[in-house]
């Protein structure tokens, strides 16, 4: 076991952990970002609605309410610095019946208290003019111009890349299994391969943040996973909604909505179901039906036959507070929680990172700004977004741009190769998919899987049957042809 020394260890590399890592990278600190999976952004961050909420939902006084509006305000700048796809589309809450209208006013009022700018109630005409595919029965809507859509996992990857470029050390496939205390303070963090002696720990372990808190004896909250299921529709239908369209919210969720994604697909979901199992990412017939039925209420002409995939995400709901758990663990001043970050956690992430920084400072961490901090990160330029002339120029510079690997999303070999050689290691099929969109289109990897796998194997020096979908035992292929026959022959020979 290798011994390391750190000022801060961040547990978990979702949107929260990576935001904190990037924030701390601004200072002269030795920071380790420790993640149990083979890649960053593998938790809730990879399966959510990816809406940058305006902030009218949460009840005033909660962390959710305070940090949502603050986070929203800095999104445009962060996404510009990190070159992450983000569109400030605005959002609409649609009242389908007269008796839902009072609820819009309630949200409007709550939004005012939370400090959400420029909220407005619009009438039926205006709504149908902006969103011609909305159910014509709609009567009114709440318009929140500061809402938007973002690529959530790309933002987490970008934050991690930028943090690493500014000196943060990333440890992948290293679950934190034990934390050693000394005199009521965290002293050493253990993973299978490392013992990290550290001055501070930040708990950003998402659905497992209660279990990580248990490692220092904190028992006063637990995480209930709350599942949400989705359908994704073909890009041809992305235009059917111009911005996220919410129904009037229910007691436990913002309701099943219809939204364009920032990459141009149409997305519906999520439902909300409380579970026990933190890994239960199954989609279910009942859940998918619920999603479809309710989404059809909002948009009767949904292209039901053109769904390209379905998936589920798990929210990390902290009980009993039902709010973010932020700040030092009781009695362990150098263990700071950023736990139970449920929706609107993606939106709040930049503000959560600032809160955590302030807590660390209060707890005694000195913050000396780095002179050389570089806030910018260059993305992998998507070939598909360029003009024919620009494309021609790129192929001249690098012939690998002349080789299309994913036909649906027009991804080139050059992009895949770049994805494999960036500051955050990418070693899996899903990793390539999230960085380039190869496999995210309408054929869902039918065409590109053999091609991406071959590039991955070549670039990382693996055999094709060592390539995994998402690390661990998720091997794509189970050996070579003739293996079974040869081993049977051998067995017979022995017998």
């Amino acid at each position, binding site marked *: 076991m290798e011994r390391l020394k750190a000022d801060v260890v961040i547990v978990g590399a979702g949107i929260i952990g990576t935001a904190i890592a990037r924030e701390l990278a601004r200072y002269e600190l030795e920071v380790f970002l420790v993640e149990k999976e083979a890649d960053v952004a593998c938790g809730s961050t990879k399966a959510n609605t990816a809406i940058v909420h305006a902030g009218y939902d949460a009840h005033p006084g909660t962390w959710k309410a305070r940090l949502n509006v603050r986070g929203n305000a800095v999104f445009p700048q962060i996404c510009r610095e990190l070159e992450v796809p983000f569109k400030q589309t605005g959002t609409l809450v649609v009242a389908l019946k007269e008796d839902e209208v009072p609820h819009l006013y309630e949200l409007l009022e709550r939004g005012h208290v939370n400090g959400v700018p420029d909220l407005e109630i619009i009438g039926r005409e205006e709504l149908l003019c902006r969103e011609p595919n909305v159910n014509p029965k709609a009567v009114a809507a709440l318009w929140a111009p500061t809402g938007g859509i973002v690529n959530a996992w790309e933002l987490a990857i970008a934050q991690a890349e930028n943090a690493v470029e500014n000196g943060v050390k990333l440890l992948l496939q290293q679950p934190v299994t034990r934390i050693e205390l000394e005199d009521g303070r965290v002293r050493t963090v253990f993973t299978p391969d490392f013992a990290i002696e550290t001055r501070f720990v930040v708990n950003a372990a998402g659905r497992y943040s209660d279990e990580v808190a248990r490692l220092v004896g904190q028992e006063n909250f637990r995480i209930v996973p709350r599942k949400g299921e989705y*359908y*994704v529709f073909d890009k*041809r239908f992305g235009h059917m909604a111009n911005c996220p369209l919410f129904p009037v919210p229910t007691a436990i969720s913002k309701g099943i909505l219809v939204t364009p994604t920032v990459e141009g697909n149409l997305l519906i979901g999520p439902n909300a179901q409380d579970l026990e199992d933190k*890994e239960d*990412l*199954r*989609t*279910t*017939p009942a*859940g*998918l039906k619920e999603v479809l039925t309710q989404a059809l209420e909002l948009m009767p002409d949904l292209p039901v036959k053109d*769904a*390209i*995939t*379905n*998936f589920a995400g798990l929210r990390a709901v902290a009980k009993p507070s039902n709010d973010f758990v932020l700040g030092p663990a009781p009695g362990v001043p150098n263990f700071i929680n950023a736990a139970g970050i449920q929706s609107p956690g993606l939106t709040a992430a930049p503000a959560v990172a600032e809160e955590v920084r302030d807590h660390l400072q209060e707890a005694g961490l000195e913050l000396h700004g780095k002179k050389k901090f570089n806030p910018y990160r260059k993305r992998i330029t998507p070939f598909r977004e360029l003009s*024919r*002339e620009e*494309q*021609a120029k790129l*192929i*001249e510079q690098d*012939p*690998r*741009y*002349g*080789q*299309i690997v994913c*036909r*649906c999303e*027009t991804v080139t070999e050059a992009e895949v190769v770049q994805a494999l050689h960036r500051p955050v290691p990418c070693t899996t*099929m899903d990793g390539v998919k999230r960085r380039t969109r190869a496999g995210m289109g309408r*054929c*869902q*990897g*039918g*065409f590109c*899987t*053999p091609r991406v796998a*071959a590039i991955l194997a070549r670039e990382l020096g693996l055999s*094709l*049957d060592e390539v*995994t*979908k*998402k690390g*661990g*035992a*998720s*091997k*794509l*292929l*189970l*050996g*070579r*042809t*003739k*293996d*079974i*026959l040869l081993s*049977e022959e051998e067995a017979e020979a022995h017998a």
Partner: protein
Amino acid sequence: MRKIECDVAVVGAGPAGLAAAGRAKAAGAGRVLLIERDRELGGILQQCIHNGFGLHLFGEELTGPEYAYRFITENQAAGVEVLLGTMVLEVRPDRRLYAINRRDGMLEIQAGAVILAMGCRERNRGAVTIPGTRPAGIFTAGTAQRFVNMEGFMPGRRIVILGSGDIGLIMARRFAWEGAKVEGVFEIMPYSNGLTRNVVQCLHDNDIPLYLSHTVVEIHGQERVEGVTVAKVDEKLTPIPGTERRVPCDTLLLSVGLIPENELSRDANIELDPVTGGPVVSDEMETSLPGIFACGNVVHVHDLVDNVTRESWLAGEGAARLVQGRQPRGPLLNTRAGEGIRYVVPHRLHLANLKERETTLYMRVREPAEHVRIEALLDGEPILSVRERVVRPAEMVSVKIPPGSIPEGRTATELTLRVVKEGERG
């Protein structure tokens, strides 16, 4: 940007593109350019190492690569030019193409006529919405076929196949011969979706069970597939509660249908038939955009390569006629899918062609039936009737209309095809 001019540009070099390019050249087109994104010619045939190709056309049972090879050598001798590793990104209505490859970079190709022969792709899990987890080990049958036959790797060792499309049946046999355990083929319909000969040769001969009226209702396993739950379905194709059964496996193959690959056509605003998923075509195989032709699986999904070749010859011929100013003139009539028929290709026929040459109409029936007649009605009046002992949705039906079936001087607007039960009067 390199600029190229040619008489006929063919997009895709599967059997459709190969036949179309060769025939265009033979029919007198000058410069014919065949463009293929893969590293070799032949399209899907290159991974079909089983035999059964060319039975109708050559009276021989060739493998896929052998079948392709005949056309490849013929084209070579005739002087068809080939661009390999070249992806066509865009087809403009004015017959300008943009394509890329590693060597030439971006190519701008101005063609007199364009033939679309991009083939089809497989429907995936999303298209059939199978609930459950999302582990490694779920493949479309064609992708698995490529891994096994072209790369030499095994996607799995214990296999469940959903859907009884031909590729799934062929892969069932391929896996069995590799020593893998094939737990069964599960088909939601009460009948197989593959050719009878494949059900017999691939499943029966290898003791692989075929479960009709069954589907996969859930996928299990976090990292790699660990099993699936299958269930019987009722007449409405909904799973029947209580019939669920868990089948352990490490791989799920999907053989649940093919979709013509019409991204390029759609972007060019070519009219598509919602039933076939391919372009609406005339008997010259010309699409709604003048000078742009289409043939093969991009038009409608074929089960036999021989039909692909025949249809593509028409496209090649049509394109050559166009660049030489020899296109047929005069009125067109529409074909229509009548009772029991799902679709008919081509969609429009030149009266002039109908009178001069044999016209083949390709169609699929809606449901299996025995002892039927396929009837052709010209504006409601029967002109032809063919007996079929069995018709099945999985097997394309073709009806040949001999030259002269339409009286001299007769005009018409619609030719309807329908299925009539033997003994009943139409």
